[in-house]
């Protein structure tokens, strides 16, 4: 039943991602060429309004439906790791034109090629698990 509510939020997320065109390879290419404000507008608005709502939830000490307080588990700061990981991700993001969320949305939109991209992403995740101890963390 709880999972059904996450599924419902996911349906909304999928519609938003498709109607905002944020799932479009062309929009991502355009963003990295700085030829439109569209994607920056979406991400910027989401971050500003997201930050405001997170601030409000923390300020009012709102409890979540699981009875916890709103917070964020901070990661240890390791500039080398964040830059390296981000760069690897960015190379893939700009090539396939979609990050993990849109991969699922595009599969639902009928782009079966996403099965290959999702398989590649799962393989990449698996490979990370194999080489984890050789990487700076």
């Amino acid at each position, binding site marked *: 039943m709880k999972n059904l509510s996450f599924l419902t939020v996911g349906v909304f997320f999928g519609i938003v991602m498709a109607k905002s065109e944020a799932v479009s390879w062309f929009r991502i290419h*355009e963003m990295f060429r700085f030829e439109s404000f569209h994607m920056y507008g979406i991400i910027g608005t989401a971050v500003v309004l997201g930050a405001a709502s997170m601030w409000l939830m923390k300020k009012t000490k709102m409890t979540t439906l699981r009875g916890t307080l709103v917070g964020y588990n901070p990661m240890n700061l390791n500039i080398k790791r964040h830059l390296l990981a981000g760069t690897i991700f960015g190379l893939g993001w700009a090539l396939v034109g979609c990050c*993990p969320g849109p991969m699922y949305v595009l599969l639902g939109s009928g782009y079966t090629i996403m099965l290959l991209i999702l398989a590649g992403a799962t393989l990449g995740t698996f490979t990370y698990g194999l080489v984890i101890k050789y990487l700076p963390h």
Partner: protein
Amino acid sequence: MNLAVNASSLVQFISQPWHWAVSGAAIALVLALMTWMGRSFGVSTTFKAFCSAAGAGKVSDFFKMDVKEEFWRIAFVIGGLIGGYIATHFLQSPEPVAISPETVDYLATIGINYPEADAKGIGFVPTSLFNFESLSGILMAVGGGFLVGFGARYGDGCTSGHAISGLAHFQLPSLITVIGFFIGGLAMTHFIFPFLVG
């Protein structure tokens, strides 16, 4: 009768491409809902859950986890898939994605036709590049997906986790990761991609 007319014009209204501000606000609402429901807004951990479910815990402790704990996240992405289906089949935009004329002109110079030839009316993926018939397309799809999956796990999050949730919680590691997203994205778009399709 009026109701029916209103419902159909409402569908028409929603079917237009959404303004960036509406879209951004809707994504912030997803973040707020997930937070209220006591979970984080992160998608890439589903890949880790798939590895774990397939038995990857036998070769690396990294994958030793209780997959049942991730069912909510898997439900969320299945919802995303259904949402993509609904948006494309019932709320389809009247025209393909309207990217800037500069991008259209540039893509033409590297042999990517936009919109008609590639877009199939919705313009989300250049299917002339990414399709099951071309070996280079298959390699780019698997290779690009690989980089996304590897980078997301190494960085402990993808766009939803870092660029949206992390930044909304003012996390410095997330900001540095997002800078990395752009270093990689700019290098791919401006230097590597033209070479790959050239």
